[in-house]
């Protein structure tokens, strides 16, 4: 063989060997540079939505004290904003009038009792007994409500909100004397409202979650912690504007460490609806004309079966913080989707599925 031919053969071998090496190298580099994706599946699932509203913690009640009888107010021992304890003197009633009234009730009862000592027919005696019982109960009631010493005492601890009478004023039985707020015998609850048109609904018996702050002092420093509690809805009502106002409290005997009218965050979760095509929220991206997601498909490549992505458009039906229900003709239950990727994807691009 001539030298020139030998050189040509050598050159051809070198070139072909180089191209062969480049082929394997480029295949390796190409595979290494392929986008790596994780997959998720289209499932039939329920989408529950959560609405967050703010409510107030109610642990006190405003109560009103009414006049037990007709009397004249002698003096007041209370003033608005004052804290009172059970048994504290609230006001002084005119003593003479109380006495006169009690004496009148006593005399009425005595007269009836004297009548009872004489002979009466059975019918007359029965009628008299009824009158005696009524007079006795009136006397008992008077004695129960009206203090003997004429000093009206507070029945419960609380804070005076408003005083409706003044010294020297004459009040009739049943007139308002004063109002006070108290937490005695009050079952605390949280009251909040859902706006009109809310996606969630509440009914008595539903469970909602409360989130609140607890402030405490540690080593002289004030720290705030977040705590949660599950509450049960006790009752609901709708106001004139269509807002749903509901009241919720812990199901067990738990007392929330909150002050009256403290602000509480309430999360209300709806029962939700079942959808045929539910995917994780991270599998979709929002574009100008709807949602875009990438479906994993397989095809025959030169080196065997290869996985590639197909871009499809979908319409949103419902979502929560984790999943989204879509409507798309190109997918069905069990279809594999791209959940996350380390590169931007293009329609038809070959990818590597990891995990």
């Amino acid at each position, binding site marked *: 063989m001539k030298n020139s*031919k030998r050189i040509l053969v050598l050159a051809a071998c070198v*070139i072909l060997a180089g*191209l062969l090496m480049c082929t394997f*190298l*480029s*295949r390796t580099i*190409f595979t290494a540079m392929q986008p790596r994706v994780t997959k998720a599946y289209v499932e039939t699932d329920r989408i529950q939505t959560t609405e967050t509203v703010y409510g107030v913690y109610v642990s006190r009640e405003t109560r009103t004290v009414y006049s037990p009888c007709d009397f004249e107010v002698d003096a007041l021992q209370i003033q608005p904003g004052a804290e009172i304890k059970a048994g504290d003197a609230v006001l002084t009633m005119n003593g003479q009038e109380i006495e006169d009234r009690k004496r009148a009730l006593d005399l009425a009862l005595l007269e009836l009792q004297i009548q009872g000592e004489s002979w009466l027919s059975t019918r007359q005696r029965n009628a008299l007994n009824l009158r005696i019982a009524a007079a006795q109960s009136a006397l008992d009631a008077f004695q129960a409500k009206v203090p003997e010493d004429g000093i009206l005492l507070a029945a419960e601890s609380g804070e005076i909100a408003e005083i409706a009478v003044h010294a020297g004023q004459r009040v009739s039985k049943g007139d308002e004397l004063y109002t006070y707020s108290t937490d005695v015998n009050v079952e605390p609850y949280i009251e909040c409202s859902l706006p009109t048109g809310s996606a969630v609904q509440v009914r008595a018996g539903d469970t909602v979650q409360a989130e609140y702050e607890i402030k405490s002092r540690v080593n002289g420093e004030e720290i705030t912690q977040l705590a949660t509690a599950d509450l049960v809805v006790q009752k609901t009502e709708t106001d004139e504007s269509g807002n749903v106002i509901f009241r919720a409290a812990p199901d067990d005997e738990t007392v929330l460490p909150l002050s009256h009218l403290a602000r509480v965050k309430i999360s209300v979760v709806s029962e939700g609806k079942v959808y045929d095509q539910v995917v994780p929220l991270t599998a979709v991206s929002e574009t100008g004309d709807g949602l875009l997601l990438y479906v994993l498909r397989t095809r025959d*490549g*030169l080196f065997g079966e290869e996985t590639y992505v197909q871009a499809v458009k979908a319409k949103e039906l419902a979502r929560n913080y984790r999943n989204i229900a879509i409507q798309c003709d190109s997918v069905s239950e069990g279809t594999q989707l791209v959940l996350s990727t380390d590169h931007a994807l293009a329609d038809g691009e070959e990818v590597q599925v990891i995990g």
Partner: protein
Amino acid sequence: MNRSSKMRAMKKRCGRAFCTLVLCVCAVTALVPLVFTLTGSFIGNGELSDAYSGLLTGGGSVRFILLPKTVTLDHYTSTLLLTPSYLIKFWVSLGLTAAIVLGQITVSCLAGYGFAKFRFPGRNLFLYTIIVLMLMPVQVMLVPQYLVLDKIGLLGSYWSLILVGWFGAFGIFLMTQIYRRFPDDILEAAEVDGAGALRRLWSIVLPNSVSGISSLLILSFIDNWNLVEQPLVFLKDYRKYPLSVFLSYINNESLGAAFVCGVLAMLPALLLFLFLKEEMIRGIEYASVK
């Protein structure tokens, strides 16, 4: 006498100069595409788009660049190292062409030997049919070939190209012509010595027809290396297309890759021609000169 001889010499020189000029023009015309392909493979993307985008969009002007402003190896890097599909197309083309050429040479040698050295009924009719087939354009045969391949279930596979290439008419005709000139005496002597037909072909005819086979090899290689219509019609999967088809689908985004693939496509044919050019010329001379 001196004057006339001087005139004759001058005419001869002018004639030679004129021929040289014409041949130079032809050579330049033939080489220009090659040079621009080679140059284009080293030009950056921006300059390429500016110069050649008019060619692809069908509007605007095209500017051929001989000396680029910036020389870059980016296209070679991306084509040879980052995108395996181009090299795979190259190997597909090479494998396909090698399979077709080897098969065609085998069939042509056997058929040519049979037509040249044996007498059988209908020999001339078959030979003339082959000549007629050789004269027909490739496109005329595409439809009947498609129908036959569809019937036998080979559409979509590489065998649809290989089998069609094996039974090419030109190769049979060329080898028939070459073997016709082979002296019968040698073959008769070998027959007397007990050599059978195939033995005579293998031991005597083939070694002495290397030049003919070389010319068939080169011509067949170039013909099949540049297949475009058959792969488009017979192969259904675009991923199976050879390099020659890809070069007809270039667009703005793959201009650089197209130039590099053009250089790649030139290499095998160029190397083969350089290796076998003497044999090819001898073979064509032998086949054509009485």
